[in-house]
């Protein structure tokens, strides 16, 4: 494990219904500081399960996830502390519908980081500014477009100052004309050096932004490398087959 490694996944397995469904079947993956790792693969290959295991939304059947020197898969550790440092963005935004944008952004920093309301709000406004949504601070999620919702959701995670951001198909639920604005925000984030793990079907984004592309199928990592290696010189036949369908 190199010194830059932020998350070290070893032998990660996740089975459902006994051993009938092997959603993850032995994953080894190192994610370094500042990397943008894009995970691709066919439907049902285990991408979401893999991502959700990183912050233990799914409880692994076996294996270890070393983050900040602790094994997250160990049930004895305080997972909540670690989750604060792992921002997550969902396909369906999951904003809190009963709170306005500002409240969505500040509730966790206030309750969990012990920030003062003014301080948390000032920080949230600064972050909103970066995604051009400062003028919607008082709006409720139902008053926002899909693209705006997802940008707010990204900011909500960022307000906790995470060490890594996890994205599970952040643009899949968006109308096509709104995909761009969300990817733009993610690109900016990558440029600022944020460590990101992104599950997406946006191959253009993967090619342009990823430092590494990981191809999964059948609960296994079958191939990984730079975008050029994976997209232009795929080795694994299943990756070749997958790319021929999506590109």
């Amino acid at each position, binding site marked *: 494990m190199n010194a830059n490694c932020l998350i070290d996944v070893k032998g990660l397995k996740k089975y459902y219904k006994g051993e009938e469904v092997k959603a993850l079947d032995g994953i080894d993956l190192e994610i370094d500081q500042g990397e943008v790792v894009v995970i691709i693969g066919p439907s049902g290959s285990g991408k979401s399960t893999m991502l959700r295991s990183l912050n233990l939304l799914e409880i692994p059947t076996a294996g270890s996830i070393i983050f900040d020197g602790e094994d997250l898969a160990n049930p004895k550790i305080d997972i909540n502390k670690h989750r604060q440092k792992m921002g997550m963005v969902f396909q369906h935004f999951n904003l809190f519908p*009963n709170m306005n944008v500002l409240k969505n952004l500040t509730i966790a920093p206030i309750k969990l980081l012990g920030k003062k309301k003014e301080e948390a709000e000032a920080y949230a406004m600064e972050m909103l500014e970066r995604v051009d949504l400062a003028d919607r601070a008082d709006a409720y999620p139902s008053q926002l477009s899909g693209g705006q919702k997802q940008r707010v959701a990204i900011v*909500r995670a960022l307000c906790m100052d995470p060490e890594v951001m996890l994205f599970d198909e952040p643009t899949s639920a968006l109308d096509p004309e709104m995909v761009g604005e969300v990817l733009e925000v993610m690109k900016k984030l990558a440029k600022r050096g944020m460590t990101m793990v992104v599950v997406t079907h946006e191959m253009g984004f993967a090619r342009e932004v990823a430092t590494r592309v990981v191809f999964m199928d059948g609960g296994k990592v079958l191939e990984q490398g730079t975008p050029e290696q994976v997209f232009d010189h795929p080795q694994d036949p299943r990756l070749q087959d997958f790319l021929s369908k999506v590109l």
Partner: protein
Amino acid sequence: MNFSDLWIVNELKRTLLVDDRYMMYVNGFINTLKITGGALIVGLIIGIIIAAIRTSYDKNKETLQLKGGIGYGILSIVNWICKVYLTVIRGTPVVVQLMIMYFVVFASSSNGVLVGIVAFGINSAAYVAEIFRAGIMSVDQGQFEAGRSIGFNYFQTMRYIIIPQMFKAVLPTLLNEFIALLKETSVAGYVGVIELTKTGNIIGGRIYEYFIPLGIVAIIYLVTVLILTALVGKVERRLRKSER
């Protein structure tokens, strides 16, 4: 013909004015409200606790099982007790529960109103608990995941994110449960509580005529229920407005 000779006027006089009988209705109605209000509070408190236990069992059993230790064992026993409670309370008539409370459990107490509050409270709690549980389950699972992924623990997620949304979803159902409770308390007369229904019964017995006294009782219930129903409608409209 003299107005005061009319049958109906005479009857109303006998049921309401003679011996200040209207005060009996007032007192009876006050007892009805006392039992309903008290039972409502008892039901809410116990109901919330049971719903909390049942949902935390459903949502945490996987984690607790993996964690080992006695946490899972305790929670599953408590959860089992709650389930038995719900089954018994919802599977037996409230009158029987009331009589067991009065003649067996609190045999030494003659405070019927208090026993009524306890009995109807415990009964109502079973229904309130299931309303809350359904409400919590109806909140999108994504909300739960958003809360947990940001670092809130189970109870913080419940408190800050799930319960405020759940409350909005169940408020109309909850208010309807209370309207049902108000009407249910009419059987408290079985254990000697002189609430509204019993009052009508007693006055009927005194004047050998039941139509007017019970009619008045029915009207008081009806008007109260109509007022409460209008309130529920208002709450529902306001909630729907804030959804948008």
